[in-house]
Structures are given as C-alpha cells and as structure tokens.
C-alpha cells in the first residue's frame, strides 16, 4: 500500500510541472496585453506603458518569466493579483471554501439520489421505473446549467418564494468567517436562524450543480450493477438463499462500486467547471467566478496560480480516489 502511495505521489511531480507550464503558457497564448486592457479606451502614453510592462516583468524573455514564476512558487509565493493587488494565495484561500462547500453538497446530492436510483433501475431492468429513471438522468445530464438555474430561481424563489434567489446567507446575519464553510460558521456564530438560512441558500445551487453528476452517476451505477448482477458469484449468493438486500446491497454493489467511484472522482473536475456557471448564477463567492474574471482581465498571476491551485486540488482528489480503489478492491492494494 505504501509503495502504491509513493508511486502515485511521485507521478504528481511531473504532472504538476506540466500543469504549471500549461497554466503559465495558456494565458499568454490569448492575445491581449494586460497593460493595454487595464487602461482601455483611455490609453496610456507609450513611456508609461513600457514602465508598467517593466514593473510587471513582461519585458523579459518568456522562459525567464516562467523560471522566475516557478522559483517563486517553490518559495510559496503565488504572486500578486493585478486587479486587487492582493496575494493570489490569500484570495484563493478566501474563496475556495465556498466552492468546496457547494461542490461537496452537490456531490452528496448526486450520490445520495444517483446510486439508489441506478441500483433500483438495474434490478428492475426494462421496467417503466428503469426507463423513466434513465430518461430523467439523460435529461439531467444534458441540462444547460444557466437555463436550469434561472428556471429554478424564477419558480422557487420569485414565484413561490420558498428559497432565496442568491447569496450564501441572509444579509441580516453578520459574523466573522472562521472556517469559510458557511454551514459550519453559521452554527459556530450561535445566531438564531443563521444555519437554517445558510441551508436554504444552498438548496438551489446544490440542485443545479448536482444535476449533471446525478445523471452520470445514476447511469454509471445502473450499467455497473447490470454487469455484476449477471456474474456467477451473485447467482451463487442467491442460490445460497441470501436475502435479496444482502445480495444486491453487499455482494453486487460493492463490486459495482469501482467504476462508480472512478466516475465520482472524474466528476470533481466537472463540478469545478460547472461551479463557474453555478457560482455566477447564484452570486456564490467561489473560485470559479474569480477565475473567469481573472481570465477576462488577463490577470496573469491570478490565472496561472489559480489554475495551478485548482489543478492541484483535482489531482489530490484523484489520488484519494486511487487510494479508495485499494480499500475497496484488495487486488489493487496488493499490486495484482
């Protein structure tokens, strides 16, 4: 297990360097001089333009800029945002908990509803239930997030007034963020009604962001279950006279979980991508919205370091997923 972990960790190094090159190069491939964009229609005198380019280090050769960036990264310096003049790492750490909270709730929503729906659909294969679940999953999978979000807002928030339109908590609640996770902070604040308000604010964004993963997980669980249900050991378990719940819930589902967990791991990337739109619709102060803003402004330090940090998180999640395989499937753990 330790060797497995070590080999996985070693693989992270070249991946990380690769991503740093891509993140660094990607924003520079986009046409547009950040200093020109900063000044807009007002324009700057040429000498001031040169001075700013020099100040930001853009007058140096690109490889030199890259190595300076890498060297600073190794010292834990992720750069200063052009826009806010604040350290990129601080901005990321301030905003990231909001994204994690939303992504976690969305994933929880997708798993809680997706896996049982997939299992039941597999067990009742071909039934009306199966067809309607799979049909709904397909619709969910193809749902345009922006449209879906607005639709839910208009129906639940404006017409029925059941949920708030956007934000993370009611404006009457004001307390210092301790963890950055609103559900936890609202409990810690001790303010009456704060937690309920935070939960109410989370409902719509969770549903919107969780819809696509829900569709994917339900379909993946169904197909994995169908494969396993036809296997000999399941037939044997049934022949032994085990209760259907044990056959399906323990023997079959555990073996069907490997591809499902892979899917869940892969969905983390999708969730972060989906978070960009969901965060925009629900005014959710997370890293997705922050990245989009940084790209449009050619805020190089925020884009390159922000991408790297997000990629780092995705890599970490994938590593955890890999380790989970080991826990579920001993063959992987023992390197067989």
């Amino acid at each position: 297990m330790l060797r497995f972990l070590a080999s996985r960790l070693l693989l992270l190094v070249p991946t990380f360097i690769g991503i740093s090159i891509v993140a660094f190069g990607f924003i520079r491939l986009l046409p547009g001089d950040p200093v020109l964009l900063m000044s807009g229609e007002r324009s700057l005198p040429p000498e001031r333009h040169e001075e700013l380019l020099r100040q930001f280090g853009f007058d140096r050769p690109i490889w030199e800029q890259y190595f300076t960036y890498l060297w600073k990264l190794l010292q834990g310096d992720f750069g200063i945002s052009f826009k806010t003049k604040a350290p990129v790492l601080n901005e990321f750490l301030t905003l990231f908990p909001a994204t994690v909270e939303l992504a976690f709730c969305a994933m929880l929503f997708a798993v809680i509803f997706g896996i049982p729906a997939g299992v039941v659909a597999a067990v009742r294969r071909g039934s009306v239930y199966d067809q309607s679940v799979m049909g709904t999953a397909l619709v969910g999978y193809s749902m345009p997030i922006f449209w879906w979000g607005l639709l839910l807002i208009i129906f639940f928030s404006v017409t029925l007034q059941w949920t708030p339109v956007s934000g993370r908590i009611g404006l009457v609640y004001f307390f210092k963020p301790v963890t950055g996770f609103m559900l936890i902070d609202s409990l810690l604040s001790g303010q009456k009604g704060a937690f309920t308000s935070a939960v109410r604010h989370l409902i719509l964004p969770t549903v919107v962001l969780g819809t696509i993963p829900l569709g994917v997980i339900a379909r993946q669980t169904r197909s994995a279950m169908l494969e396993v249900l036809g296997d000999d050991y399941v037939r044997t378990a049934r022949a032994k006279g085990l209760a259907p719940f044990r056959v399906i819930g323990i023997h079959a589902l555990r073996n069907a979980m490997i591809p499902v967990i892979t899917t869940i791991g892969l969905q983390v990337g999708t969730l972060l991508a989906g978070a960009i739109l969901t965060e925009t619709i629900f005014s959710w102060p997370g890293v997705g919205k922050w990245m989009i803003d940084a790209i449009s402004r050619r805020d190089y330090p925020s884009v390159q370091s922000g991408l790297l940090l997000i990629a780092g998180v995705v890599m970490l999640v994938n590593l955890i997923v890999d380790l989970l395989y080991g826990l579920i499937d001993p063959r992987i753990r023992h390197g067989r």
Partner: protein
Amino acid sequence: MKRVTTLASALLFTTMLAAGTASAKTLVYCSEGSPEGFDPAPYTAGTTFNASSRPIYNRLVEFERGTTKVIPGLAESWEASADGLEFTFKLRKGVKFHTTSYFTPSRDFNADDVIFSFSRQWKKDHPWNQYTAGVAWEYFDGMDMPALLKDIVKVDDYTVKFVLNRPEAPFIANLAMDFASILSAEYAAKLEADGKKDMINQQPVGTGPFMFVDYQKDAVIRYHAHSDYWGGKQQIDDLIFAITTDAAVRMQKLKAGECHVAPYPPPAEIASLKADPNLDVMEQEGLNVGYLAYNTMQAPFDKVEVRKALNMAINKQAILDAVFQGAGSAAKNPIPPTMWSYNNETVDDTYDPEAAKKMLADAGVSDLKMKIWAMPVQRPYNPDARKMAELIQADFAKVGVGAEIVSYEWGEYLERSKAKDRDGAVLLGWTGDNGDPDNFLAVLLGCSAVGGNNRAQWCYKPFEDLIQKAKTLPTNDQREPLYAEAQKVFKEQAPWATIAHSVVFMPMSKKVSNYKMDPLGSHRFDGVDIAE
C-alpha cells in the same frame, strides 16, 4: 490581529443593529461586481468607485447629486488667481474622519490630509507612492495631473493652494473625480508605523457619508451611516452591497424583494420591470457617446462631402432598435445631452440614401471600398459592435459603398486603431470622467490627440482654437458659447458619424425615495431614504 479587528467590526455592527432596534433603516443595493479595492485612486472602474470613493470619502469639491455641477465639498470655497494658475481652497472646519473598529482619529480633517492624498499619487519618492506591489495611479496620470501641477502648498491648517503650470479650467472638475478623494494622513501614518500599508486598500477610513464595516470578498460589503458626517447624518442607517454579477439574477432579486436597488437591467427585461407594481424604473441618458470615426487623413475620407454622404447613408433608428433595443438615443453631437454646453441647435445629418448617393457621385467617388472596424467587446455606448457594423455595412451597400468588417482582440484594436495610416472607419466610444466638455472634445478630437485617442486623426484649426481658448477661461458661463460653436464646427466637418448615447435604466423598489441618477454614471446613496 486581522481576526481580532474583523471580530470587533462584527461586534460593532451587531451593536449598531441592536442600538438601531426596529427603527434601523437598511438599504440593500445589488451591485454588479466586486470592488478592486477600497482606495479609489489606483483604480478606474465605476464599480470600485461606487463601493469606495462615493460612500466612504469626500473630495475638496463634489458633483452635486444628479448633475455634473461642481459644488463645495471638503473645501468650503475656492478662488482662482487672475492668470488662472493658482487655486486657493479654504477647507471646512470640524470635519470628522470615521471612527471604526480599526482606527480612532485623534484630530479633524485638515490641510495635511489634502497634501497626503495628492502627494502620494504625484511624487515618485513619496513613501506611499508604491505602497503595494504594482500600484499605478491611472486616473491621476490619465488626467495629466503630473504635467499640470507645479506645487501644492499648505498655507495654513485650513488653506491649501494648488499651483499649475498652465491655465486649465477643467481642473476644478478634476478635483471632484474619484481619484481626488481625501484620505486620512493620520490613519496612513498609523498603518505605516504598524508596517501594514496595504490595509489602506482593505480597511478604508474617510470623511464620507458612510463608514466601512466589513467586506466578504465577492459577496457582501457593509457600511454604516457616519454619525458625525459634516453634511448631516444619512437617513438610512445601514447600507449593504450584495454583489450579484449576473444581470438576470440581479433583477430576480429585486423582484423577490431581496434588494432595493439593482443597476444595469438587461434591455429585454425593462418592460417587465416597468410593469411590476412594486418597482420604479428611472432612466437617463448616459454620459457617453458611440461613434464611427473616419480616418480624415486618408482619401477619400479627407473630403467633408464624402464623410457627410456616408453619415447620411446610416439609418440610426434601425441601429437604435436592433443594437440598443430601445436603451439608446440618437447622437448628433460629440458630447451627450446631459452635459453642460450641449448644443441643441445643431442639426443632424438626415438619413437619405438617395441624396448620399448623389453627394458621393458629385464628389467624384464611385465604387468606394472601405473597412469598418467592429470592437470585440460590449460597452454601454455600443452593446454589440458587430451587429452595428453589419447594419452600417448594409446601409453603405445601398449607396454603392462596399464595406468589409474587421476586428481585433480588444487591446490590439485600441492600439491599431490609433495609427494615422489606419485603413477604415472605427467604431468606438467614450464615457465621460468629470462632466467637462473638454474631457470629450479635447481628448477625442483635439490636435494633440491625433495618433492617439483622436481616431478620426482630425486636426482642424477653427475647432482646435475654440477648445483651446475655452480651456483657459475661468467660468463655465464664459466657456459655454465656445463649446457650443465647436459642436457646430464639428457637425459641419463630420469627422465622425455620431451614432448613439446609451440610456441608463435604474430599477428600484418603490420604498426607495430621493434617489437621483448620476449623469456621470456613479451610484450614490447619500441623501437617499427608504420606507420601512
């Protein structure tokens, strides 16, 4: 330390809420974006100014709410020397800075604060000139202040004299702009002593109508009314900015009663907002102009008749309908109608393709091929440049002119369109900074701007003489006729096809009263009230 101060501000705010009990009035404004910081001087974005300079700070002079008229602010009065080179300001006494959880002022506002606020932007060796990495004083530099200022002298604690290198009438209006906000020199000294200079951009202290309480990045900004405000305490107790970047969602929040004021509605929603019984929709022409600039240095656009003919070929009404969807008004002058000196007597080129065709023929132009440059970005003065270019292209085709549409990435576009040998006419526009006509006419059409912001590359002596003369006259009454004449000359010479001024809509709850739309485009909540 930061945690302690934030905790303290939370406590302070809660106490304020409790103290206000049921009578505390809170106004929630769903703002369109996050401020870049709370020190207005290094920035140029209106969103940043709405959250920083307008609620938190004052300037020596202020724009009167709802107008571009300059009125006394932290300076009670001022006088200009006969040669227009010296401006002496008498400062208001007894003006209090905000007492916040992170700073308690020991003295009132005085001349030191004025000197500090300008010197930090002006003097490269000032300890606050580079107080944080990459700080640049875009507006101070952009308004040409370094070249204009010769000296700033503290005559006594309540008198400050600005000495200029040349007479410049718009100088007073410049001092009402956001970059000229007055910060506390005492607070700066404290931050410097604590080694935390960058906090001036995060925890601001000013003299303005509202004091800063807290900012949760990209989510919420909280302010509380300044109880010792020299202009009198505000009627609303708490002001909250709920940052809501998506326009459609912002409008839904307004309809659901989650905010009281929400700017920039999508044009398609204006009808439904107007129909909502709980909402009012205010509207005003924006302080901007969208135009098509010919290159008057290149044949055949060096001929007035050709430019006039092309102007007459453009169907502006079709553009207003299709591109602005009603949120625009046809422009005939290079300055917007809300600006003083606007000349309503000028006559716009009428849409008449037949006459245009004949004029082109008379000018000896046939089979003209040209380029139309379409901006790649949306701007208030041009929400869809590509569509606008296509409509103009079709209009030109009707008079026998073949136009090709070109575009570049925004930075490139701005740079390339400045070239004197540029091929084609450029779609662009401008939003005013200080409500002064010089800020449009000299910046966009002056001879010194050729090869720069003067995209028409148009240097015309009669026009130039008028705007240069106007710049040196001390009062707006004296300047006004010259600018009116300049607009007439502009119209006769037609270096641009003036297309449109955007119309800005501001939907708000009917509970809000006394909100005034600002022709300069900022969103101010001083003087505003809300029914409980």
